């Protein structure tokens, strides 16, 4: 099978269209520029496109500074004032209502109906997300009140239910955040994220600094929420965590998604097709443990062509023009599957 074959491309396009139709989140042409003094600008995210279905986990992976966290902030309307955003990010509407374009929505809409309600946020550092002077129970009840308007007498039960959904032990509800282990703090934060019963969960580096066992437990719990029908956008630099729960993987490099692939192919014997993605996997300590030479380019001074070219073993003259994404890979010389 040749990936450039028109019938194959048509079939792929049809799959993509179908995905977009029942997507919880459908992103097209998402571009973020930061204007700096002196007329310079930083191309933080360029032409990002992906769909995320219900019951699906998409892992967005890449190194720090590649634009993946900026992308998440753009979806939530949390970018600083000097950011310019274009493109669309359609969040599925509730109960038959039409979708909301997160990039066009005003702050009031995002604050009142999106963040925490239709999009549940699993934070990077649970410590920063929990209020130190209040018990977990009181924070859960407060969030239940704010998000669901549950009457006072039903709040206690609703908070306990939320804790149970996140596997947070009822016996610890009356503790303060500093009395919790890292794992329990992460569960408390996840319980908060689940209260609005959002169909879309967004987790930005939820496992940073956690022990491997805790990473496994945290992502397994997230997976459970996906299996209940939520869509999860997992933003991470932890490839092992991505391998454990993702259905699909999107790799970001210098602000662009350079490859999107099913996780079983990406992490399996066939491997990724983009040279950067291959390099990233080969750097893992249980693989070759060899770094990709050099460093990523400055987002304020990107080359005209492929941004990976200075580090790429396969670069040719052709790579001086930018490769458009094709069958999930943006590369002039994608590698053929290894198996």
């Amino acid at each position, binding site marked *: 099978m040749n990936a450039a074959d028109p019938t194959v491309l048509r079939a792929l396009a049809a799959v993509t269209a179908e995905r977009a139709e029942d997507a919880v989140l459908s992103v097209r042409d998402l571009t973020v520029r930061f204007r700096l003094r002196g007329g310079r600008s930083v191309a933080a995210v360029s032409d990002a496109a992906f769909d995320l279905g219900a019951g699906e986990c998409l892992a967005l992976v890449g*190194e720090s500074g590649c634009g993946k966290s900026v992308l998440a902030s753009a979806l939530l309307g949390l970018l600083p004032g000097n950011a310019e955003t274009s493109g669309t990010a359609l969040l599925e509407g509730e109960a038959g209502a039409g979708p909301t374009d997160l990039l066009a929505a005003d702050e009031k809409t995002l604050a009142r109906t999106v963040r925490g309600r239709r999009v549940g946020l699993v934070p990077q550092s649970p410590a920063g997300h929990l209020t130190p002077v209040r018990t977990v129970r009181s924070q859960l009840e407060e969030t239940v009140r704010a998000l669901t308007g549950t009457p006072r007498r039903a709040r206690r039960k609703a908070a306990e239910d939320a804790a149970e959904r996140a596997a947070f032990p009822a016996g610890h509800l009356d503790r303060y955040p500093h009395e919790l282990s890292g794992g329990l703090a992460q569960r408390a934060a996840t319980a908060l994220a689940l209260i609005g019963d959002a169909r879309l969960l967004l987790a930005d580096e939820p496992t940073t600094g956690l022990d*491997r066992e805790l990473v496994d437990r945290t992502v397994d719990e997230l997976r459970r929420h996906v299996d209940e029908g939520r869509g999860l956008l997992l933003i991470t630099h932890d490839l092992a965590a991505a391998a454990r729960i993702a259905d699909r993987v999107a790799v970001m490099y210098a602000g662009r998604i350079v490859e999107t692939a099913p996780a079983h192919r990406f992490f399996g014997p066939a491997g990724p097709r983009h040279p950067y993605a291959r390099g*990233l996997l080969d750097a893992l*300590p249980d693989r070759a*443990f060899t770094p990709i030479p050099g460093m990523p380019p400055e987002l304020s001074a990107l080359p005209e062509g492929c941004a990976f070219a200075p580090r790429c073993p396969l670069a040719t003259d052709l790579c001086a023009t930018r490769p458009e994404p094709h069958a999930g890979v943006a590369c002039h010389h994608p590698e053929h599957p290894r198996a």
Partner: protein
Amino acid sequence: MLELDTVTAGYERRAPVFRGASLTVAPGESVGLLGPSGCGKSTLARVAALLHRPDAGRLVLDGTEVRAWRHRAPRELRTAVGVVFQQPRTAADPRLTLAEIIAEPLRATGRRAEADSRVAELAPAVGLTADLLTRRPHEVSDGQLQRACLARALTLSPRWLICDEMTAMLDASTTAALVAAVETYRAETGAGLLAVGHDRVLLNRWCDRTVEWKDCLPPKETR
């Protein structure tokens, strides 16, 4: 030899973080210390780096017991040990350029004149390009700043390196690059390494041997 002999340490005398921990690293050896977060292994790393005075027990560095601790050990001893922490953002002065961060130990020991040549040697060894050296921490990524922090640890050519979760915040490629830079330095100088972390796969791949935190402590009954 770097020897920690039944060391007790913490931040409150009455409630030490751990009691009686022992660990030895032979010259030129690399040892991974594996333990869950919050177990006290970072405090042990600070003691081994001569940055935190133990409440009890001995620290012997190349045959000499470290004495005359204030909060830290005397500076002449500390120059034998380079240390890299998990969080480059809290470990680097935000007002300094990366070149100044790398040269800090030379300035602190009155050897400012050597700064330029030493920075020029170290920057390529940790993969930093010249244009990054004039920037300040907020103008570079976590990975780039951590490269500078590793270079700073190598500035005085220490015989011992302590890396406390050096790569926990970093992506796979930057992790492999920093570990390769440490190993190149060790191959050239014969320096010993204590790498503290929670990632078993990484420590097993990186170090000559990996020890479990619980095996550094005395058996339960006597604690």
